[in-house]
């Protein structure tokens, strides 16, 4: 039983090629519904079997974290917020 599950997983992984895995994982967002989305399950599982792919994914996540930090510093005009609140 366990053997057949492993075999099925292996063949399923083989069906998804590396560029496709990368394409999928580029839109993966930790902490959202993506974590439990079957669409990403196979792609995430393949990281354990492929160190090169795992390293690429770590770098991708690191890049995302830097970009999120950079974008969080975009200035917001708080006077507009005050005007909206005063209007209420």
């Amino acid at each position, binding site marked *: 039983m366990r053997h057949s599950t492993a075999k099925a997983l292996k063949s399923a992984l083989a069906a998804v090629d590396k560029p496709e895995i990368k394409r999928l994982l*580029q839109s993966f967002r930790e902490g959202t519904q993506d974590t439990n989305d079957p669409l990403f399950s196979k792609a995430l599982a393949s990281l354990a079997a492929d160190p090169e792919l795992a390293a690429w994914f770590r770098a991708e996540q690191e890049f995302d974290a830097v970009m999120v930090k950079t974008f969080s510093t975009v200035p917001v005009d708080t006077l507009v917020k005050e005007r909206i609140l005063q209007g209420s």
Partner: protein
Amino acid sequence: MSISGSNENGKHDRLTRFDNLVEQNFATAYRFAFCLSLAHDRATRIVEATFDEAKALQETEAKVDKTWILQELHRKWRACHPAKYDTDGSEDYAAAGGISIRIEDVAQMDCAGVLKILHGMSPAHRLVLSLFYFEQLGHDEIARILELPAETVISRLAQAKVLLRQTLERGRRDASLHSESPEISAGRSG
């Protein structure tokens, strides 16, 4: 008297709900509007109009949340820019080279530099990136906001991220060339 008091309470509750909505979502709305419109005055206009509508909707007890606000901002911007919106971003991708910025270099870049590059991208790519990085949304929520199939969002995100890294690297190389002293540049050319 009791009816009047009840009405007053209802109005107060609606105002409190609206204040909470603004407090919780203003920064998100403003940043997204700025990313759409590329200018603070235009961002201000669509944000104010969207919150006005949100307030009116709340008075009818309709559900108004962050997704609705982002969808409405996007609809307002799209209504004013139908031609621009028709592009799918493939022109960006076709122009991209093979270079890609290293993580050490991207960490050195400031927000203004990154925004400038983002603003040079097509709306199709800029929108998915802004929702992914500003709002940290998953692909399914981005798809709901932009009213696109999830598969389209996944493909655009993958393209846009590759393109962003390539464009950041080109920008970094250009900046380092310009920051070289005239003597070095002259020495190289001579």
